[in-house]
């Protein structure tokens, strides 16, 4: 947990800001012009959506130290809320329905956060697990949520902002990128604000935080609300911009674990960690699979290839975490410092 001070260099904006600017120029200027539909649809859009979910969970688990296994449930709440809002209130524009969906998810987060006032650690994780199962049960049981679709699977509405259609691969990527950029900025403001410092104080020592005047209960609930707000919007993006269909099975416990691993591998308590972790968990397996297919050819048994891929990925995770338990963000920091020293 000592990664935080190193990972949030607020006072030295030069190199970081430059890097961020370059990244934004790349993401907005160069990628949309050069990317293929595969890059947008299969790599970048799911990467961004899951990175955003990781970012949301990181607010809760990384910064406030509250363990949650309910991320997929918040994604589901966000996705189905956005679906219902745009279905039942046709006047709403896409940004508004995304925002409102985020608030619905935040509300769910507040409810899920109530046990956190009493529980900590693994006990809290178990209570968020209850939410995970409750949401799956409710989606299956209450037909209204999926507009009484007989199979429970609903088709996402088209992406239209201010009369402009973003319903092509590039448009969906740009919508996702913009939402993710805005929310990342908001999250950055949050974690660098006094409230953000309160979160860290609670994580590091709750009693001490209480003694110095942090309102623990309020801050914990705020962490849950902010985190599920972000995760809910990530769920809506995942459903609307990536899959273009919403089905309950896509938001199961496996997805919650996936997001938790993104945060752990990327680096707890850093904003970059979510993006690095999502790259590792979402993009790397695809690269491995393409590499395997390219090396072995089409005729190779895809089941065996998949198994080999899992072994390789598992070994990589173990290797990275042995090398740097604080995650990829810390690994990157160390590499950066080493390069800087070499240059000097």
């Amino acid at each position, binding site marked *: 947990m000592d990664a935080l001070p190193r990972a949030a260099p607020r006072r030295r904006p030069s190199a970081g800001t430059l890097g961020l600017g370059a990244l934004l120029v790349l993401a907005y200027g160069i990628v949309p012009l050069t990317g293929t539909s595969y890059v947008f649809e299969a790599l970048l859009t799911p990467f961004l959506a899951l990175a955003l979910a990781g970012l949301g969970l990181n607010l809760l688990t990384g910064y406030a130290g509250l363990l949650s296994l309910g991320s997929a449930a918040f994604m589901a709440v966000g996705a189905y809320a956005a679906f219902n809002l745009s279905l039942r209130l046709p006047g709403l524009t896409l940004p508004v329905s995304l925002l409102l969906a985020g608030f619905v998810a935040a509300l769910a987060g507040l409810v899920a956060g109530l046990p956190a006032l009493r529980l900590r650690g693994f006990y809290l994780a178990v209570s968020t697990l209850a939410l995970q199962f409750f949401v799956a049960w409710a989606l299956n049981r209450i037909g209204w949520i999926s507009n009484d679709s*007989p199979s429970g699977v609903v*088709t996402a509405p088209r992406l239209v902002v201010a009369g402009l259609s973003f319903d092509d691969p590039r448009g969906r990527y740009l919508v996702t990128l913009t939402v993710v950029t805005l929310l990342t900025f908001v999250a950055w403001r949050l974690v660098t604000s006094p409230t953000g410092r309160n979160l860290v104080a609670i994580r590091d020592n709750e009693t001490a935080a209480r003694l110095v005047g942090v309102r623990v209960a309020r801050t914990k609930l705020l962490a849950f609300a902010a985190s599920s707000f972000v995760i809910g919007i990530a769920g809506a993006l995942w459903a609307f911009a990536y*899959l*273009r269909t919403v089905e309950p099975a896509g938001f199961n416990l496996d997805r919650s674990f996936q997001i938790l691993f993104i945060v752990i591998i990327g680096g707890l308590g850093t904003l970059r960690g979510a993006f690095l972790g999502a790259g590792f968990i979402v993009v790397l397996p695809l690269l491995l699979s*393409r590499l395997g297919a390219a090396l072995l050819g089409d005729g190779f*048994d895809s089941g065996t290839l998949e198994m080999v891929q899992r072994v390789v990925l598992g070994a990589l995770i173990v290797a990275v975490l042995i090398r740097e338990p604080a995650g990829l963000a810390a*690994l990157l920091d160390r590499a950066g410092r080493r390069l800087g020293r070499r240059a000097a």
Partner: protein
Amino acid sequence: MPLTTRLRAALLAGTVALAGAAPRAAWADEQYFPLQSYRVGPYAAGGTGFFGGFIDYLNLINVRDGGVNGVKLTWSEGETQYEVERGVEVYERLKSRPGIAAWNPLSVGIAYAMIDRVTADKVPLITINHGRTDSTDGRVFPYVFPLLLNPYSETSGIIQYLGTRAGGLDKLKGKTVAVLYHGSPYGKETIPIYARLAERYGFTVAQIEVPHPGNEQQSQWLTIRRLRPDFVVLRGWGVMNPVALKTAQKTGFPADRIVGNVWSNSEEDVIPAGDAAKGYVAITTQASGTAYPVIQEVVGRVYAAGNGNLADRKRIGSVYHNLGVLNGILNVEALRIAQARFGQRTLSGDEVRWGFEHLRLDEARVAALGAKGLFHSINVTCANHEGEGRVTFQQWDGAKWTVVSDWIAPDWASLRPIIEASATAYAKERGITPRDCAAEEAAAAAR
């Protein structure tokens, strides 16, 4: 730092592989099948059987006939593990390959995610025996084909069969049917249609849910014992099926009065139940076994040469393998029909769509294909993308499935208005103007 160097090298190699996967040069006479298969994960038994059978048949056509009128059939696989996002990734990865004939995901979730995509890309999406019920209406879903059977006609077929068991549909009056369904959207999909049929034929229906995965069903079967139904319909999935059969035996409900639906009808569903499955009956669109000439040819030409796709030759002729072979027959015949109109060459997805919309295989043609007894017939049109598939019922004797009924026709006419209403609602929601099939046919004939 050797590790990061190696990591960087791996990433670089991956990027190179990604860049190198640009569309390959098209050969003039190849038709390509992208396969979103699943050979890993909880549904691997179905995936290996189905895609194994499909590939075996494509292989047979290449080996025996030199392709379809000289057009060679090619394919490649992408592993999905039955997960929607992996299916989407494979779609995006393979869709730029030249000469794509049709997509065959065999997964409801993946099929739903592909409806918009295939419609934009103008390539057919085949969801044999499953998929979205209202996609039967080809006027609203031009590129989606739930061939042979959709959940509604499956339900109707089961009730027709129960009618024959009772001695006539009118004899169903006063009977009780319990439906034991998987606690998922799939399981719940047929609840309204059962209610409708119960009202029409005067039987009582009791819907009993089994939560996923269904490895504990004591309380559900106690309910069934109390209800004393005349029949139990098993609308199961995976491990739920053998557990249902075993628990039925424990509670004393005879297996021959349990009727399984299309996802409860394979060897994998009954073998784990052992003796408890003896006498169990299940619906199917294609008979099992290796007695049919086309399966014999698959064995003689493909497996004898060591090119068979199934790792275990004992699975040849199993339910999923035969479904895969049947799926191969339907795809290949649609290509043949489209070629007869557009020429013997690599066809575009839209031309193959035309082929599927004229996929008419009567009993004589089915026999000529060596599939007499394997399946009955199909008659797909522009408006009806299901194609009036007949169903039959098979009974498990402890070692193999034996057909125990005629080919039964579901009551399509009474289902059509429900399907059209649902499709029309979808069209309205999505701003789709339904096609005018009669006008399209007239225009095509005039050309």
